[in-house]
């Protein structure tokens, strides 16, 4: 692990007595490699390592008696700061209903996360409405309906022959009239490079003006995370990220990449297939996980 590798970089220090620029370079190389192994994007890892170098030099790691620990501490702090920052809460609309729209690549966990969010909202005293906005994937509507049934949450659907933009508008209208405080829109998985499908999201956004647009990202995503996040953010303006499948052993470097390239906070993480497997994001825990 990184700690052990840094120890070995600095291992013969006692003999030489003082840290050189070259030692710091070697240490930073280990940090960058650890980040790349954790799937942090290439450019993000390079920029991050540069920041660490500035701080390491500034905090006089050069004079430290325990440079390996110092470097780890700096990396941990920088990572946590980068991923924490602003409060990662759901924003509620001043006039109900609060409309949340979940978007992202195919298979990332949107439908399941919609249900989990509905579960959380209900526990917090809200009256959520789930919306079946995926009219393309076989049995997608049925999937959301089964989850809604399990939770006792209503699922709004207009079948799979209606434009998702109209479904979203009708759902919000219904939510307003039935006093649902929260409306959660499930959308079809799509590629950020599928212009027509990205356009569909833009049209839903301009039609119903969601309070929260959440990008759902699989924690095992590799280098591509920056491409996906930046396009979704540039085209839609996302409000936050839900990082899924953290119950696996992926290091989750995509979290750092997405945060670095969009500046948007990770609001939730999901840690399993059960509908209560949704948690607040903890930046220090993510930092430790990425560092391995």
């Amino acid at each position, binding site marked *: 692990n990184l700690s052990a590798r840094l120890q070995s970089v600095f291992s013969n220090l006692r003999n030489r007595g003082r840290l050189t620029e070259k030692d710091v370079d070697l240490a930073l190389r280990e940090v960058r*490699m650890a980040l*790349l*192994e*954790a*799937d942090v*994007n*290439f*450019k993000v890892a390079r920029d991050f390592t540069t920041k660490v170098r500035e701080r390491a030099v500034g905090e006089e790691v050069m004079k430290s008696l325990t440079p390996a620990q110092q470097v780890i501490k700096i990396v941990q702090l920088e990572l946590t700061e980068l991923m924490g920052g602003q409060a990662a809460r759901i924003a509620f609309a001043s006039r109900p209903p609060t409309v949340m729209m979940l978007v992202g*690549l*195919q*298979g*990332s*966990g949107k439908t399941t996360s919609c249900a989990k969010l509905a579960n959380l909202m209900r526990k917090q005293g809200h009256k959520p409405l789930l919306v079946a906005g995926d009219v*393309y*994937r*076989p*049995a*997608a509507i*049925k*999937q*959301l*309906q*089964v*989850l809604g049934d*399990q939770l006792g949450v209503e699922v709004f659907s207009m079948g799979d022959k209606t434009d998702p933009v109209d479904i979203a508008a009708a759902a919000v209208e219904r939510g307003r009239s039935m006093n649902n405080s929260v409306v959660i829109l499930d959308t079809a998985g799509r*590629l*950020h*490079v599928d212009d027509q499908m990205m356009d569909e999201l833009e049209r839903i956004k301009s039609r119903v003006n969601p309070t929260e647009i959440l990008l759902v990202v*699989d924690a*095992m*995503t*590799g*280098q*591509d*995370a920056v*491409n*996906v996040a930046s396009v979704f953010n540039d085209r839609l303006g996302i409000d936050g990220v839900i990082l899924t*499948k953290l*119950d*696996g*052993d*992926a*290091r989750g*470097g*995509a979290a750092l990449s997405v945060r670095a390239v969009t500046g948007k906070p990770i609001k939730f993480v999901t840690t399993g*297939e059960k509908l209560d497997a949704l948690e607040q994001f903890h930046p220090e825990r993510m930092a430790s996980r990425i560092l391995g």
Partner: protein
Amino acid sequence: FSKKKAIDEETLEELEAVLIQSDLGIAATSAIIDSLRECGSRGERLDADGAVALIEQELVSILGANTVPLVKAGQPPTVVMVVGVNGTGKTTSIGKIASMLVREGNKVMLAAGDTFRAAAAEQLEVWGNRIGCNVIRHKEGSDPAAVAFDAYQSARARGFDYLLIDTAGRLHTKSNLMEELKKIKRVISRECDGAPHEVLLVVDATTGQNAIAQARVFNEAVGVTGVVLTKLDGTARGGIVVAISQELNIPVKYVGVGEGAEDLRPFNPDRFVQGILR
């Protein structure tokens, strides 16, 4: 890269960035870049074009110079089990493979072995209707091994050429779920010597280094005979299959390039490698 200048440190760094960003991984990338650097230091005249060609050659040889087709059992039905972590495209890939087999004149049966996830069997049934394949399913919550068993008996009795078994997505870190997968395999192999004849691991091209852990654990549990690399129609290059091929000797058999029945191609190493480097 400028075509005729000799391989220099800057070009090597550019190549390193390309390889890492294609999810080739730091180990494989360093090995390639280091060996190119040695060519340069041995005074071998190598320009950027030559370097790219060398890398392509190396990657193609790791991936296997020939595409490997789907296995065909000596006696029908050929049993294909499809496995992988959640959301990678297993169910959709079964639809595509079945569609291809039907177009080739085969009688194909599908087994809805995901008895856990909401509307999983319904999803496979839609595919079955789309392409004209029988789907064997039980109700939600039943034993997936029982579904596999029933499907095999039916496929065998009714002279089907292929039986494709869908399984629930599962993270390789969940040992109880990996045990369930082993049980499905055991039940099938008891019914038919040599079955399942093919175990396809479905890997999402957007996956990073975790794909190697997935491949190792699934291979250890049920013996993976081939990989289906999905979602290559995105911007991810799927470089993680290089490490999977190299370390575990498992060939990529198909790539998924979309969500429709026809969006499946036999794996072509040259084309795949060009996708990374050009």
